[in-house]
């Protein structure tokens, strides 16, 4: 990019060819007011707040859409443009309901801030008072069209960042509204409830019921931490007031890992009344009764004796590495058992066995690429995963790649529920024929000469087995044309990314993972030393737990007699609940009461995500830090403290270091 020189407010400034005048102003610390501009989104010049004077232009022009040129002479602060800006503000205020005293966003409103800046103490034009609808049917979001300035920030963030393409302008002229789909109520639309529009809205037109009247930004403490929900590891800006959660925002809304999802932005704010706040043990009648920690610890040590030698530990990967390693030591050393697992350890064992079969790989999980590669992809193959449900940010990255970068989306899934609006090519194999399908695709790719790997390992070729198109078609139930097309599209991709997840792992067949890895290897879909393959992980620290070796052996075989389950605030899965059936002595350390705690012999309290601190490893292997955003509730113990107390009672030493 060639450098250009402009004169702005009589000063020489430099920029790049292709920059807008606004970008150059901002890069050089020249303050130009904006309203419809949001960094990271395209500019449309909707509000005209950023008008500037440019020599030889007959009229003021919006800086945000004006391409800078070499030699341009710009004035951003003349009396005339300041007058225009104030006039534009007055006109915006007359258009709809912009009376602040009954607006939730007062104090956090860009429009209001501009009015203060321009000392707008009166409006010289008559108001129009249109009576516009308010859509408050969604459980999460409200759109009050009366507060809207039609800047389009919500629309652009919805299409460019969330890639949901739900919001758009509806109607024409002064009747224009922001509409969801074809003016559906938001709650019934294609909205994914990521809440990016809430953050992007400069006024009180789109807001969330979960944030309502809890506090204004200036009254809040802000801490940047990481999302405790899934393995993507999104950064959260958590706002708190008086040790209560107020609002969660994305500190880097427009970056690949930036936008948040329904869980990160909204669900984490929900306060549950079912918190475990005190230890509980079963009394003689078999009823769970509150007790002191000491009594609970005693009950555990007694129970340990009865389950001697057959005691296991399971831990949720929602807790950070520090807690995980202490738990590992606790089970291995203090209890003296090697029965240890994470709640999603089964997935790990299939993935790691799949990788081992691929090339006796020593790099283990490092064979996978970072999630940013999804955005760069020209083809995405999804096998047995539903990212929009399990890891919504991966879902938005896929949608972005497809809608903005024209990536081709191939989905292997029998249900038809995966990216129903975005999939280019469906492959719906019969149950159990996934392996045949994957190896069949490899075979077709080799046959068509699309294999980029010069030397295809003989062992792999032999593992592919015999294949005939007709048989492949019969086994999978997929038409020959479809199979060929899928092989061609993926085989010709330069940056094809494979994403797989729980639905594939549920088959409990590591060779499916191996087949996917070979498919990527065969077509040369690598980025440096990594394959363009991503396995979705359900919990924030799934990978951390796996790397610490917590899930290596697992306890899938026989059931232990006694179990210590450190569940923390992980949502309870039916599967786990069923598995717990028949365990004689169950200790559950959890943040919330659930069917699992009501089955326990001893219940211990555990912190919630906001009270915890420590290291997480994201699903693609980045170390991130979970920070404490709320002080633990009165009388709460650190998760580790309880383990240390039990060890003490048993006469063992257990420490964090």
């Amino acid at each position, binding site marked *: 990019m060639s450098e250009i020189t402009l004169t702005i407010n009589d000063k020489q400034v430099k920029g790049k060819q292709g920059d807008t005048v606004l970008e150059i102003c901002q890069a050089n610390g020249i303050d130009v007011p904006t309203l419809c501009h949001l960094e990271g989104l395209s500019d449309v010049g909707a509000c005209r707040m950023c008008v500037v004077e440019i020599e030889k232009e007959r009229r003021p022009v919006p800086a945000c859409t004006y391409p800078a040129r070499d030699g341009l002479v710009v004035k951003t602060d003349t009396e005339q443009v300041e007058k225009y800006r104030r006039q534009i503000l007055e006109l915006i205020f007359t258009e709809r309901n912009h009376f602040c*005293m009954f607006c939730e966003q007062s104090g956090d409103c860009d429009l209001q801030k501009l009015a203060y800046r321009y000392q707008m103490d*009166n409006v010289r034009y*008559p108001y129009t008072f249109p009576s516009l609808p308010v859509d408050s049917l969604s459980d999460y979001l409200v759109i009050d069209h009366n507060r809207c300035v039609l800047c389009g920030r919500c629309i652009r963030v919805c299409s460019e960042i969330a890639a949901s393409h739900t919001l758009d302008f509806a109607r024409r002229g002064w009747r224009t509204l922001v509409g969801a789909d074809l003016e559906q109520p938001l709650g019934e639309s294609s909205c994914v409830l990521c809440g990016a529009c809430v953050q992007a809205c400069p006024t009180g037109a789109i807001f969330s019921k979960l944030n309502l009247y809890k506090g204004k930004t200036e009254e809040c403490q802000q801490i940047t931490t990481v999302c405790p929900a899934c393995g993507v590891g999104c950064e959260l800006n958590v706002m708190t007031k008086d040790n209560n959660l107020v609002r969660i925002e994305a500190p880097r809304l427009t970056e690949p890992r930036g936008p948040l999802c329904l869980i990160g932005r909204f669900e984490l704010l929900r306060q549950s009344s079912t918190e475990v706040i005190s230890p509980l043990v079963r009394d003689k009648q078999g009823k769970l009764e509150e007790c002191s920690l000491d009594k609970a610890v005693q009950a555990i040590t007694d129970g340990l004796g009865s389950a001697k030698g057959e005691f296991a530990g399971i831990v949720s990967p929602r807790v950070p590495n520090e807690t995980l390693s202490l738990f590992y030591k606790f089970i291995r050393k203090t209890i003296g058992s090697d029965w240890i697992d994470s709640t999603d350890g089964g997935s790990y064992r299939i993935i790691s066995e799949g990788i081992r079969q691929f090339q006796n790989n020593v790099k283990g999980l490092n064979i996978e690429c970072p999630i940013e590669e999804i955005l760069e992809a020209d083809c995405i193959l999804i096998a047995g995963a539903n990212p929009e449900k399990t890891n919504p940010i991966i879902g938005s990255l896929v949608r972005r790649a497809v809608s903005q970068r024209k990536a081709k989306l191939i989905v292997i899934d029998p249900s038809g529920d995966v990216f129903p609006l975005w999939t280019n090519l469906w492959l719906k194999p019969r149950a159990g024929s996934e392996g045949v399908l994957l190896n069949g695709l490899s075979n077709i790719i080799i046959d068509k000469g699309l294999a980029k790997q010069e030397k295809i390992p003989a062992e792999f070729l032999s593992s592919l087995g015999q294949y005939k198109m007709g048989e492949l078609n019969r086994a999978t139930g997929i038409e020959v044309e479809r199979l060929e097309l899928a092989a061609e599209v993926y085989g010709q991709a330069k940056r094809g990314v494979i994403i797989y997840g729980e639905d594939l792992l549920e088959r409990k067949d590591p060779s499916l993972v191996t087949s996917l890895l070979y498919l990527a290897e065969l077509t040369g879909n690598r980025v440096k030393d990594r394959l363009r393959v991503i396995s979705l992980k359900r919990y924030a620290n799934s990978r951390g737990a796996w790397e610490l070796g917590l899930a290596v052996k697992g306890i899938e075989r026989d059931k232990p007699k006694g179990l210590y389950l450190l569940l923390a605030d992980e949502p309870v899965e039916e599967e786990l609940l069923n598995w717990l059936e028949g365990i004689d002595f169950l200790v559950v350390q959890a943040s919330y009461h659930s069917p699992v705690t009501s089955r326990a012999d001893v219940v211990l309290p555990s912190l919630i995500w906001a009270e915890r601190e420590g290291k997480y490893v994201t699903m693609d292997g980045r170390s991130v830090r979970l920070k404490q955003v709320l002080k633990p509730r009165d009388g709460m113990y650190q998760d580790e403290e309880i383990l240390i107390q039990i060890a003490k009672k048993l006469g063992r030493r257990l420490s964090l270091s």
Partner: protein
Amino acid sequence: MAKVKVATTWLDCCSGCHMSFLDLDEALISLADVIEITASPITDIKEFSPVDVGIIEGAVGNAHDEEVAKKLRANCKILMVWGDCACFGGICTMRNLFTREEVLRRYYSTESTTKDSNIPSSEDLPPLREVKPVNQVVKVDCYVPGCPPSSKAIHYALAELLEGRIPILPSEIMRFD
């Protein structure tokens, strides 16, 4: 030096701006040395005589409001308005989104606190009109927005006037809520 004569009134409003004025507390005492309030809802004197500064709180919501605003304008050299209702229309304009009948029915029937739910009607009652900010009815010289304006903002505006300047609230003091 003769005291500066001031007359205040309120129109369609909640009286919050006058309360904010009273919140000046001890500053009122020193203010009383330099200004004289000739008419005001606080003194309950409603007839205006010629003054230096007229002050209006509230929006114009009916013919009576308009008449009062015009009378005060005619009797003052400088007209200052207090509060979002007077500056912009404010919370009173909520009713502009509905017809007059809807507003009256809602007030006297559905949310009624009166015994008989009749909409009162009398020649003496000025009918409701579309709510307007004061500057759409008479010329206004200076504005102190806020709902209500802080006593700090009111004090700033009065002090500026006494210094012979037309006040425009600095951004740091200006608030719309």
